[in-house]
């Protein structure tokens, strides 16, 4: 009798789980499609610029990098000097894995002439996690070439991406304001000016330490990045943009980068301790980021350096 009842309950249970699962699947698909559409029609903001850089730009010069990239390089200035179109696709809070994934995606479409890859002095340090790759999730479905990198985040990423909503986790409130076309913080070429100086705001400038533990996945990504540029005949420049002050000249990252640069014969520009930018707290917003005044100076400088390099 008990076994009969047990069987009946089990069958009903499976039936209910199935119905609930189906309902979830449908809701997930509907809401996810809505989110995907909102993401696609963004008129401004970080998602718009990422998509533009990945799927639309055909600029001759591309600027890659994390936060210092999008705050330091003014495309118009570089464009004026070098007489080529420039797009800045720096993105806050990401690492070289993102850059490598982006490069793979872009090169399927077109080949830029020059790439400036901006790096930070601890760029290759060991990471606890790769959660910053979540910004690439919206492209998981379409850009299969990025999947192996996005999957580094966890073993279950492929399963999680079966959900239509998951790639858009925590984005809805950021996306809604950008549905209407209005001028955002970024210029049309991806530059993101920041204002306010450390001097005025009395910000404590911190001296960063040398992170000696390097992350093998990040090193591999940088190596792949450089190798691919070489293979596709793209002129790559590695740049360490200025810091307010830095205790040591060569971090473990810088040593490694120089080693790889030697291997692939890629020029490295190191402005970390450059006297033109060092120690001036009115051109920095914080220890590692130039404000708009600083970016004006730096963009002119880097454009000049590249121009000299191109002539030789």
């Amino acid at each position, binding site marked *: 009798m008990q076994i009969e009842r*047990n069987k009946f*309950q089990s069958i009903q249970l499976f039936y209910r789980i199935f119905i*609930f699962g189906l309902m979830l699947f449908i809701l997930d698909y509907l809401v996810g499609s809505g989110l995907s559409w909102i993401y696609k029609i963004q008129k401004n903001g970080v998602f718009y610029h990422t998509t533009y850089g990945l799927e639309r730009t055909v600029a001759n010069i591309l600027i890659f990098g994390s936060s210092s990239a999008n705050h330091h390089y003014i495309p118009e200035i570089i464009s004026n000097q070098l007489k080529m179109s420039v797009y800045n696709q720096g993105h806050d809070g990401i690492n070289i894995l993102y850059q490598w994934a982006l490069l793979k995606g872009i090169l399927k479409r077109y080949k830029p002439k020059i790439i400036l890859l901006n790096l930070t002095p601890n760029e290759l340090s060991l990471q606890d996690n790769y959660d910053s790759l979540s910004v690439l999730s919206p492209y998981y479905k379409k850009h299969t070439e990025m999947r192996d990198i996005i999957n580094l985040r966890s073993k279950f990423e492929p399963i999680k991406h079966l959900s239509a909503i998951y790639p858009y986790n*925590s984005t809805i409130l950021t996306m809604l304001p950008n549905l209407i076309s209005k001028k955002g913080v970024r210029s049309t070429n991806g530059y993101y000016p920041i204002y306010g100086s450390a001097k005025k705001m009395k910000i404590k400038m911190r001296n960063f330490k040398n992170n000696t533990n390097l992350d093998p996945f990040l090193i591999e990504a940088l190596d792949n990045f450089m190798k691919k540029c070489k293979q596709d005949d793209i002129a790559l420049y590695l740049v360490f943009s200025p810091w307010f002050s830095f205790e040591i000249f060569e971090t473990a990252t810088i040593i490694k980068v120089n080693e790889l640069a030697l291997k692939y014969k890629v020029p490295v520009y190191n402005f970390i301790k450059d006297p033109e930018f060092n120690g001036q707290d009115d051109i920095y917003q914080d220890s590692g980021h130039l404000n708009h005044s600083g970016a004006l100076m730096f963009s002119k400088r880097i454009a000049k350096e590249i121009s000299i390099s191109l002539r030789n």
Partner: protein
Amino acid sequence: MQFNSFYFLLFFTAIILFYYLIPNKNYQRTFLIATSLFFVFQANYLSLLVICLIAILNYFFGIGIETKKNNFAGKFIFYLAILINISNLFFFKYYDFFLENLSGFLGLFNFKNPPQVLKLILPIGISFYTFQILGYLIDIWQENLKPEKDILVFLNYVFFFPKLLAGPIERAQNFFPQAKESKYILLSNFSAGGKLLIWGFFQKLVIADRIAIYVDSVYHNFDQHSGITLLVCSVLYVFQVYADFSGYTDIARGLAKILGYDLMINFRRPLLAFSITDFWRRWHISLSSWVNDYIYMPLSLKFRAIGKAGVFIALFVSFIIVGIWHGAKWTFVVFGVLQGIFLVVELMTLRKKKKLATKIPAWILNGAGLLMTFILITVSLIFFRSPSLKIALSVFAKININGKLFLGTASFFLYSLIGILILMMHDICLEIFKKDIFKFKSDYFILRGFPYAMLVIIILMIGVFDGGQFIYFNF
């Protein structure tokens, strides 16, 4: 293995399948014990060794106390058992704290050679199962309970993995009868369990982990934040702890329910309490009722001859224990002392309140009580969150309504507020209207399941998926 990980999801699905394969109680209990031990084994070997030793020792202690109850041997076994359990907890959790403070004290007298601290790993769940076992032993000693002779039942009582890591602190009287039955697949168990799981994950992933991002970033450089930021941060932290712990408890209860076990309720809408006294009947109920039954009651009875003073002493001691149970830090002691002070003051002003109740309308009195209680809890929890006493006092001193509010990432701030809104709507409806807002009355399963499906959708949309430790895991 954490509950909010994919690994666990797969792990638990496998457990359910094997568990209900053979609805025989001995098989199921053994399987549960093995699963729970695997859980502990995953953490570290020390935890496994300690919990097994403790469980087996206490199994025999319990029987010993009962069989020898009529002579001195019984008394001896009882006190020995209590000593061993408390020493075990003290050794792993409080030894270093004790030593450091002792050294500091002796250092005042130029005592130069401080003994070495041990920096031991805290065996997982030790604070929870130690208290559980102490309660078990005391109940036997006071002849409120017969010791459990079936070792499978007893071991399950100690090891049961849903409650192992962060409670609830189960009572033997509640658990044993349930552990003696064979469990069959019951739709009602899966339904109720599933609902608890979804609501628990919602509280954890959408509310607690989201607020944590903000609170952590403020505490990271608290001295650079404005007074109003610290105020808002402290208020948000109250919701974080509540959602985190209540969420965890609901997940534990959901898992247990699916396995056919009812674990005790740990939270009963604590943020709607009208007084601190009321608050502690609604917050971490398994702990507060444990301390009430095994520490406060005996103490207050012991001091009954000295009237109200006896009650005050009993309250203070009880809540210092509640405080320090949370961790070996002075901040937790202060937390406990504060509760003691608040409760004593409330007790002393009880008569005045009764007089006021005749003059002032109930809603004003209750509203004031609600607000006051929330403020006192916000202050108490500053000590809970701060890594040190010095920081706690700095934060407390800096709080005011001046300055610019730090929003962090504005959208993250808003997601927190959405989560809090849903949580408080749920609690208020349940408290005042006695209605669960997620319970749709319908004959159709699809309609009944819809609100829970929406909760899952919201979790997918704004839940935090990057790890996020449960706060109560270090106990």
